[in-house]
């Protein structure tokens, strides 16, 4: 089959690789119809996530048709149309039973690597480094999906691929980012990053009852999408305005009640701060650039909540712990427990409350995946979200 492979820093290629095979009784093989490039794939592309091997198949947002099931699969059959959540979760360990699917205790065969970097290991993830399992990803023609009865969600025929594909990651991720804010009546929510996850965080904050949502980014077209499609009340271009001044004015001097970091480890910011963190990152003195996170913490109102859904890989520097502690801030974070959100969010799509396809700007055939990575990285042609059709 054809698959998008990581070949080194800033290098992906569509290669001919062996077809997936059933390795565990609860596996299913899915013939992929639609798959997407995620912002977090760019961290892999740029070489910031350790433990990648040349030839690793990328991709963790995908859907398609079940073509084979292992003998332990009960609820899926050949021909079912499914969306696959990005965390691989067994459904029976303590974490899964508590709904913390991205912390599955059984799905990472390389847990020992993650343990060395993070203390304990999270779940395995499709196409996202060997530290998170070494699973082949879904930017391919076929994928092997472990625990097929636990993860994949059957979707109704009347919904198009584009309407349901993002249930695999970015819609639930944005939604969980908003849910962790514990939104109360009258809350003003600020969202750093108007990429696809940021867009869903904005839309979800409104679904969960936020009064006003403010989006912060540096690309006009993304801020425009935030206003016009996700419904943001105000937007701040941090290259044109001082974020702190703007937020103080917009919130009557209080600061946003809830702040969402939808940026993660490769943040940009004011040239001086950016240069500082970029240099430390290049010298391996920190692995991640926490510019958005610092700003979210420092700007959040006293007693507010900072919700972190942007991906971080390792260690950061100059973390404003004094601000967090003295001002009674709460910080919440996590890779999305996608399995927990798929059904309720599918219901919202079916109800017509949201059509997640609004973030798509580009559609390419699978064999043009490398072009998709370049466009997405360089924000060419107002690129927001690339969907690959297999």
């Amino acid at each position, binding site marked *: 089959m054809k698959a998008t492979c990581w070949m080194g820093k800033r290098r992906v290629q569509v290669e001919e690789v062996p077809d997936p095979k059933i390795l565990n009784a609860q596996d299913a093989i899915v013939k992929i119809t639609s798959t997407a490039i995620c912002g977090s794939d760019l961290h892999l592309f740029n070489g910031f996530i350790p433990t990648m091997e040349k030839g690793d198949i990328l991709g963790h947002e995908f859907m398609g048709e079940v073509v084979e099931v292992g003998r332990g699969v009960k609820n899926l059959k050949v021909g079912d149309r499914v969306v696959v959540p990005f965390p691989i979760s067994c459904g029976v360990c303590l974490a899964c039973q508590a709904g913390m699917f991205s912390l599955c205790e059984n799905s990472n065969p390389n847990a020992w690597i993650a343990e060395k970097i993070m203390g304990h290991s999270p779940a395995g993830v499709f196409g996202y480094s060997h530290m998170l399992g*070494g*699973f082949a990803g879904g930017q391919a023609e076929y994928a092997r999906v472990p625990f097929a009865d636990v993860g994949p969600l059957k979707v109704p025929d009347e919904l198009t691929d584009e309407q349901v594909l993002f249930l695999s990651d970015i819609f639930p991720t944005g939604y969980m980012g908003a849910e962790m804010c514990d939104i109360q009546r009258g809350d003003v929510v600020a969202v750093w990053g108007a990429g696809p996850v940021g867009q869903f965080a904005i839309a979800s904050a409104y679904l969960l009852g936020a009064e006003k949502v403010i989006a912060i980014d540096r690309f006009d077209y993304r801020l425009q999408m935030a206003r016009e499609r996700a419904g943001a009340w105000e937007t701040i271009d941090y290259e044109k305005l001082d974020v702190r001044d703007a937020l103080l004015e917009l919130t009557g001097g209080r600061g946003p009640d809830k702040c969402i970091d939808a940026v993660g480890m490769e943040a940009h910011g004011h040239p001086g701060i950016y240069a500082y963190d970029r240099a430390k990152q290049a010298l391996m003195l920190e692995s991640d650039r926490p510019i958005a996170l610092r700003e979210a913490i420092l700007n959040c109102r006293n007693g507010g909540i900072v919700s972190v859904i942007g991906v971080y890989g390792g260690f950061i520097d100059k973390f404003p712990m004094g601000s967090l502690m003295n001002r009674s801030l709460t910080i919440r974070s996590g890779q999305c427990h996608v399995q927990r959100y798929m059904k309720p969010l599918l219901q919202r799509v079916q109800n017509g409350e949201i059509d997640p396809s609004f973030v798509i700007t580009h559609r390419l055939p699978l064999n043009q995946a490398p072009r998709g990575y370049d466009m997405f990285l360089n924000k060419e042609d107002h690129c927001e979200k690339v969907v690959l059709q297999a």
Partner: protein
Amino acid sequence: MPIAADSTRRYASSYGERRVASYPSTQTWGRRWDDHHREAGNGSEQGTEARARGLGWFSIGLGLAQIAAPRAVARLIGVSENDETKNTMFALGLREITSGIGILSRPQASGWVWSRVGGDLMDLALLGKAMSSEDNDRGRLAAATAAVLGVTVVDFITGRDLSREGDGTERPRGGPRPGRGVHVTEAITVNRPVPEVYDFWHNFENLPRFMEHLESVQVTGEGRSHWKAKAPAGASVEWDAETVEDRPNQLISWRALPDSTVPNSGSVRFREAPGNRGTEIIVDLQYQPPGGKLASLIAKLFGEEPGQQVKSDLRRFKQVMEVGEVVHSDSSIFRGTHAAQPPEDLNEVELLGSAKHQTNFSPRQESTATTTSR
């Protein structure tokens, strides 16, 4: 509105409550564990430990000198001061500091003291090489060599004593005794009831389903078993073992028979996890690795750390108990590193615990229950 919010809050709060409920018992457990450690110390151990601490501080001091003033150190030992010397000094300084910090910060410092012995041997080799160069001061080099030889003896004696003493924790009778070869303790929590976990382990023939280095175990008689394990370079080793103690739902311990070629012993303890979380199991293993201490040190340098192997085995044990089989990724089925790509042919890869044991797969009831309740 909140179909989603309700369902997720329920998940979140149930997890939260369970965690809070367990705090007091965790603390009690922690205190008892600490007490064991304190009570275990005795006079001679304290002497060795003081000597080890001295070596730790010596390492850090020497390392700092090598990094801060490489040329002065080079002069002192009679090596000519050039850029190459400076770089070598810097690397040696880093090594010294690492050993020093390791000795001072690890509850069980013997491994780090052995790293000093390795470092001493490296220093002696470098000094020998330096002797052969015309540029260096041979008188000073000879003095430096004598000093390093002296330190090597102290390091060796300290390392040996520390290894003999073990780490002082109480071990079950018949379980591993301190001071012989490699000793490993690892723990994991399995989300199944104690009797089920105990029963599975009690049948030693189940062990190769999750222990990567075991080929087979055959029960040969009352309390007797025959073990076959993989050895380096495709060879295998075999031995007979006897069960030393068997307390249902609490403890099993075993050891190789005295004439075994691979002296080893082990024990596994079972206890109920707090808050209905299943079973905590704690494994102690002790063995003389083929090739002795040096081989195991080298293995450690290349990532084959015994503690990590045992922990990975326990993780697979948890998978077999909870999921029904060992969980594979596209790369984990290959020996060594391999791209995350499907295998060309299933016959070429090793499917521990599933290919060999096709008939044993039994999916858990909860698997279906969880899915339907979502």
